[in-house]
């Protein structure tokens, strides 16, 4: 299997199929990054698409082809931050309702856990609770579960150590369990 570095070189030389392969490798990661930033799966898909396109546009500027993945994730973060800074961030709370993220929105609206639980089923609740986690814990859960990755993979994406990933996953799972058990009572 070709390395990212090889594929970037081929893509920069004009081989579209090489960029296609890079897209296949990194789409899940980019999507997880976007989901972690904007807390909406549907919006994350849109922003991830934009990020992949910007990666193609900016490929000539990538000086270290071996760092394609983190570089592309950096683009995704900037795309999300630009979106969050724009006026559309307020609108997404309304879009989130129509996109089936009503549980997340409702949970933020001050409802009691019982009221929030009454509105959504268990299947949606867990993802909604993930989206409500503080950013550091939300990111690590999303990166870990969007694809089969190791602590080192997640650590590289986040710029932290593998031990930190371990600690954050531990804490995130504990928070989720606590939150879900509180809703069930």
């Amino acid at each position, binding site marked *: 299997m070709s390395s990212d570095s090889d594929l970037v070189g081929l893509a920069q030389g004009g081989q579209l199929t090489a960029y296609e392969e890079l897209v296949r490798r990194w789409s*899940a990661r980019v999507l997880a990054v976007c989901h972690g930033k904007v807390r909406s799966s549907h919006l994350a898909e849109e922003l991830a698409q934009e990020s992949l396109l910007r990666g193609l546009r900016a490929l000539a500027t990538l000086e270290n082809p071996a760092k394609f993945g983190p570089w592309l994730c950096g683009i995704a973060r900037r795309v999300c931050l630009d979106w969050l800074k724009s006026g559309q961030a307020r609108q997404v709370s309304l879009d989130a309702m129509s996109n089936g993220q009503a549980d997340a929105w409702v949970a933020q609206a001050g409802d009691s856990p019982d009221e929030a639980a009454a509105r959504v089923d268990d299947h949606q609740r867990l993802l909604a609770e993930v989206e409500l986690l503080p950013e550091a814990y939300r990111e690590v859960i999303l990166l870990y579960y969007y694809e089969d990755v190791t602590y080192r993979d997640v650590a590289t994406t986040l710029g932290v150590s593998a031990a930190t990933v371990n600690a954050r996953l531990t804490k995130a799972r504990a928070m989720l369990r606590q939150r879900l058990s509180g809703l069930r009572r």
Partner: protein
Amino acid sequence: MRCEDVLNRLNARADGELRAEDAAELDAHLAECSPCRAEAEAIDAIDADLRREFLPRREAAVRLAESAVVAVRATTVAPLAVAMSGASARRFAWGPALAGLAAGFLLAVALFRPWQPWSVAPDSAPPLAPIARLAFASGRVEMRPASRIEFFTCPTNAPIGRDAIVRTGPAARCEIALEDGNALRLDCNTEVTLHESEVVEVNRGRLWWSSQPGLKGVEIQAYGCPIVAIEPAELAVDCQPHEARLIVVDGTVNVQSGEKSVEVGPGKQLRIVQGKLDDTPQACDALLETAWVNSVLALRSSDNPELIERVEQLLANIGAAKLSLLYEDELRRLGDAGVPPLLAYLASTRETPSVAQRATAARIVADVAESRWIADLIALLTDANADVRLHAARGLERLTGRDQGLAAQAWQTASWASCEPAHQKWLDWWAENRDHYPTARRDIPAPTSPPF
């Protein structure tokens, strides 16, 4: 090992990340600590729940990847040669390819493939032939292909398939280019269904269509009533919750409802209420009723013939119609995008300087033009129309803070002999400073004889 130390290791073990040297120590602790054993089971359970919960998200990631791949393949422009001179100077000339790719075939091309389960090879289904493309938009436009139940953001240049629904947001107007060469313009908060490239249904909002020479017409449907141009026409359809209106700006249009058929001529509108046609078209100010389309035309380019023609029509009505301020408002609403058609109008009427609308055009240009039109305003200082010169001088003072020693009012009343020194100063100033300004025009011809 203490229980407090165990938590991270339990999670690492669940994730297959526990080092071998720690595993034995952990097993020994678990053999003697039932609370930690319970904790291990709880961690395994939440891990299993999360894996199950994220299955649809993983499938979404796969679909995202395939839609992106399809979009990359849809690029039709061949990549250019790479210029290499050292690793740091490596250049990747994707510019033209990416200009065509624009914001993405990424999403919309992929939507021609029905969303497939992971087990289906993405290349097995042939893409649907597009019947239209999103040419350009001023904001977010969404599309729902026939095979989907969700709307997606529709990027510029994205192909649109048969029976797709396209809708604009509250701040977005757009142009849809049909494959047969026709173009549809949509106002904000508008939704249409593209049944075929020749059949478009307006579900809500406002649509504009104008026939083009040599092209077949488009059948527009509103509340089930087909609307067809009998001769070359410009029309708009305004579809509201309880009624639709057909507004004909030019040409003649036929509307049908069952056995009933009504022809609507230029400057007329016809209401369609619950699928039933009014008997008689009513007069209307078609130009004002369809003024929203001016900003869509300006998006395409400020010098496109359709926009120029509409600007001239608006100008012609200023002073000639009641409520002519409304026409001027529409021109001002275009802002700087309206300046090229106004300048084109001033240039085309230079031989008939006394036409009243010329002063209006110059006044609007003076108020809204940005600095890239400075050279054009300097050129207008030699116009035979005194009011045009006055407004040109006003505009230059607003944009540059200068009057070159001659107040704007003087350009209206003084002779050329009195104005010429200031004009020369403007020419000299422009020659010295033009590189500091973005400009559509660089050269200003000096008059060979007194212009006024």
